[in-house]
């Protein structure tokens, strides 16, 4: 798209928002349609594919046996990684993770970690020595805006889909036993992302809204309506009033989404 068309479209988006409307017909706090498919990668211990409108994100979970961190010897380890693979967008380039994919991974990670979504203390095999390491790999397949919320949904859906092999300890060695158990999950954090356009807040911005927005604010809310993570992004700012308003809306939207997904 030429930059003139882009600017015209941005103006249009901006003007509509000031009238409480959006280019795709949504209300200001409406999400695009959410479709979740779990178990899409049989070779992974857990997996899910999320469609948020045309944004498409996959998450895969792999479990490995590794060492705990020295300050949490009785807990499993969570590692979240995100790849903005170049087939998802003309703006993504091959190469090591850049600041955008690192931020994405870390915001999703904080939502899961701070809400204590995984019962990490149940993933200890031998205190201080052997624990399960949970690798959550987020794979963005099509970027049409709001990667954070889609990725957070994919991560949680993949964790809910994850099976751990049964095992027993024999002479200090892990022996695999038949059967699987679900990964112990106690919370379902939901990330709600706002864009500020024309000094107005909207939720779940799609790509062209992201190109128009001044700033971005993500608020992750747990099952009890508590905030467990926030992240402001973009080169603009929010007023304190807008932040508190966003927090209120986030709580409502998260509950709404959790209800819709039966989480």
């Amino acid at each position, binding site marked *: 798209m030429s930059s003139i068309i882009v600017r015209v479209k941005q103006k249009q988006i901006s003007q509509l928002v000031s009238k409480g409307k959006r280019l795709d017909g949504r209300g200001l706090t409406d999400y695009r349609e959410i479709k979740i498919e779990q178990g*899409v*990668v*049989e*070779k*992974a211990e857990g*997996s899910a594919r999320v469609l948020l409108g*045309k944004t*498409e994100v*996959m998450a*895969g*979970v*792999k479990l*490995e046996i590794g060492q705990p961190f020295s300050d949490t010897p009785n807990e499993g380890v969570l590692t979240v*990684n995100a*790849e903005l*693979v*170049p*087939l*998802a*967008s*003309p703006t993504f380039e*091959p190469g*090591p*993770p850049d600041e955008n994919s690192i931020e994405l991974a870390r915001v999703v990670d904080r939502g899961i970690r701070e809400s204590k979504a995984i019962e990490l203390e149940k993933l200890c095999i031998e205190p201080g020595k052997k624990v399960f390491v949970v*690798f959550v*790999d987020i*794979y963005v*397949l*099509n*970027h*049409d805006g709001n990667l954070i919320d889609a990725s957070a949904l994919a991560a949680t859906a993949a964790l809910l889909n994850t099976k751990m092999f049964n095992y027993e300890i024999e002479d200090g060695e892990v022996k*695999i036993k038949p059967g699987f158990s679900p990964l112990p999950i106690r919370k379902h954090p939901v990330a709600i992302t706002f864009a500020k356009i024309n000094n107005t807040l909207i939720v779940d911005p799609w790509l062209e809204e992201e190109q128009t927005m001044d700033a971005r604010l993500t608020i992750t809310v747990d099952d009890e309506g508590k905030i467990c993570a926030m992240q402001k992004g973009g080169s603009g700012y929010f007023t304190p009033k807008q932040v508190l308003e966003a927090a209120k809306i986030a709580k409502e939207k998260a509950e709404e989404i959790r209800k819709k997904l039966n989480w």
Partner: protein
Amino acid sequence: MNEKIEKLINDKGLRLDGRKPEELRPIKIEVGVLSNADGSAYIQQGKNKILAAVYGPKELHPKHLALPDRTVLRCRYHMAPFSVQERKSPAPSRREIELSKVIREALEPSLFLEYYPRTAIDIFIEVLQADGGTRCASITAASLALADAGIPMRDLVAACAAGKVDDTIVVDLMDAEDKKGTADVPVALMPNFNAITLLQMDGDLTMKEFEKAFNMALEGCRKIYTLQKEALKAKYLNVKEVEE
């Protein structure tokens, strides 16, 4: 873990998944699956799940890499960390770098690269799940993604492997056959030109065995070619319906 597969071919001559030696795995192909790419395709071949996307022709940075008389074709074959049994680091492995090269060279003969001097065409392949034969399935999908992007081509490229397991020559090896078998011969073909654009082999084959495997792989390519054309038609018809 250390499960031992005793026999890859049973007494009835059937393979682990019940296939006959010359039988392909179930294949599902879809064209035009990604909204941002200029062209794209998705393939399921057995448990392989692979996406291919094409961006271009487009400008090339830095400019001194551009060629005055043709487009620069670039290709990245990449596996998702969760696509294999043991988590794979997302950094490109030596194997992925080699496969990116041979896949690019398998697709290059099918394209009129001289139509777009000073530009680049990028092919991005993501293996979401791997189950043996990913390089062939990747070529099959990538060729469709190129067609979907409207890149002028001489012919589609279809790819298929054959190999030897338990002394039997079989086509389209799945993961277990690939690992426990004694030879693997991946082949890519432009059927209308009878042109082999990829040929690799590792294992241990007499001349006769090689010839048999080679011909079986070619036959597989031809079958897959038919599926490719159907997938293209399916998209074309859908688009026409939408347009009307």
